[in-house]
């Protein structure tokens, strides 16, 4: 392990390391607990002296996302991070970025809401991340890390998918994943693209100088002609269908012979993987399906389990029941789908989830 090395780091810290190593051009952010270590770590690492990456503390979240908007329009690899109330402020910008078909990465280290809420972990922003947040018919690609290593890896994956589909990606983490430390292996430094490389790769859409092309590129979401705007919408929808077909990612734990399935993501999935161990020790055939992409949702994988004859599904999430909607749509009445959750920054225990599973589904 010469260049690669095992480190012990917080989820938030690895976001900063990953940004640099995956060749990010610019980070624009505003501090908020529980994710402030992202910018703090970037400031300590001083990447402007090594890779040339820009790190800037903006005056607000509104400003951060609009700096990202500007950077993304020029074909640069740009990102921001925040926590729930801050991401709410960014939603207008996210709608504009999606409408202009610009790639970028946004990290949401969720905390309890609604409102200013609490700084403790929550998963209350599932609807916001997956169903809109901003206005209009758009989607973000939403990745849900459940370990510190995935926090690292998904920065690279998030940027790659964002550029592949020219759409914003979001890492939907939470305070628990952001604050905890685990082992992480850092990847090799990926060089930042030069201006020439950006022009060559993204010159068809990026506002990086007209050069010898006949037409200038314009990044806009304003279309006064409704027919033209409908065309834009149809193009976006066609792109989302492609993403839904090609990009769902999930993990199955002990699902092969499972009679019951827990569906959980992120930190909840970690807690529920212990529930699976406890249930198996008692002879209950329980499995865990962990969506890794929340949009596109792994509906087909869940439907396949329902068709195979799984007796019941339990969705466990740190909110009042949001992802359960998508699980019910996927199961489509083939089996009962129950929900269990805690709110306000409280995490459930693995044994608590097992008790709910028994009372609601096994009886």
């Amino acid at each position, binding site marked *: 392990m010469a260049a690669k090395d*095992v480190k*012990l780091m917080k989820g938030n810290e690895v976001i900063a390391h990953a940004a640099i190593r995956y060749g990010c051009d610019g980070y624009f952010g505003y501090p908020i*607990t*529980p994710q402030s270590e992202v910018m703090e770590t970037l400031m300590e690492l001083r990447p402007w002296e090594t890779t040339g990456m820009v790190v800037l503390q903006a005056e607000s979240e509104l400003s951060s996302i609009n700096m990202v908007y500007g950077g993304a329009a020029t074909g640069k690899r740009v990102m921001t991070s925040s926590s729930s109330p801050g991401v709410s402020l960014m939603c207008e910008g996210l709608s504009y970025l999606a409408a202009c078909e610009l790639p970028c990465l946004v990290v949401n280290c969720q905390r309890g809401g609604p409102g200013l809420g609490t*700084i*403790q972990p929550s998963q209350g922003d599932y609807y916001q991340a997956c169903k809109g947040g901003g206005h209009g018919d758009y989607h973000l690609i939403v990745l849900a890390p459940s370990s510190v290593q995935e926090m690292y890896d998904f920065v690279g994956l998030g940027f790659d998918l964002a550029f592949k589909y020219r759409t914003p990606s979001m890492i939907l983490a939470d*305070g*628990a994943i952001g*604050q*905890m*430390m*685990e*082992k992480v292996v850092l990847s090799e430094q990926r060089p930042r693209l030069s201006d020439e490389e950006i022009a060559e790769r993204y010159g068809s859409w990026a506002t990086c100088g007209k050069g010898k092309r006949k037409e200038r590129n314009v990044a806009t979401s304003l279309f006064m002609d409704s027919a033209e705007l409908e065309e834009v919408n149809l193009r976006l929808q066609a792109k989302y269908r492609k993403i839904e077909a090609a990009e769902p990612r999930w993990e199955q734990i002990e699902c092969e012979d499972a009679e019951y399935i827990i569906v959980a993501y992120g*930190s909840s999935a*970690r*807690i*529920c*993987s*212990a529930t*699976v*161990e406890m249930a198996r020790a008692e002879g209950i055939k329980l499995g865990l399906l962990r969506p890794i992409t929340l949009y596109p949702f792994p509906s087909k994988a869940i439907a396949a389990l329902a068709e195979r004859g799984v007796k019941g599904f339990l969705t466990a999430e740190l909110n009042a029941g949001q992802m359960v909607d998508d699980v019910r749509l996927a199961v489509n009445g083939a089996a009962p789908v129950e929900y269990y959750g805690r709110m306000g920054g409280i*995490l459930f*225990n*693995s*044994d608590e989830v097992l008790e709910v599973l028994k009372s609601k589904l096994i009886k």
Partner: protein
Amino acid sequence: MKETIIIAGFGGQGVLSMGKILAYSGVMQDFEVSWMPSYGPEMRGGTANVTVILSDRKISSPIANEYDTAIVLNQQSLDKFEPLIKTGGVLIYDTNGVVNPPTRTDIEVYSIDAASECALTGQSKMFNTMILGGYLKLRPIVEMSNVMEGLKKSLPERAWAYLPQNEAAIIRGGELIRKVR
């Protein structure tokens, strides 16, 4: 092997760093590790705690319902975590921080008078490594060489001059720990 440890006390006692040193020692020993802190207002003058898990297998949940070992450095932490220790588990407390000693009889109870020792030698910053030394005496799950590597990795380079004092404190902690029952 899987050891789930809760370390709890006041903010400023070095609870989180003690957990980090232990976790990094586990990394050096090639264990899977997790370090899950309390964070936020709890750290500012209130209680702070961290759950550290060392395991030779992949760690499912970094959040624990019960603990193999609890290291408690004040009364509030003792009250909170004594009931959450597994039967047959270990409770270690610093004599100075605890007025009402633990009552459970189905666990092993140890005390360590680290605060007094540190006050005596004027090395208050060695308090947490001394407690850690007491724990490692009871549960030598990581080798001393890996503890020292873990300590080095946990500390910023400017603090490396204090490594020998920390090593001495770890050894002293092992000498100071006493079985209560």
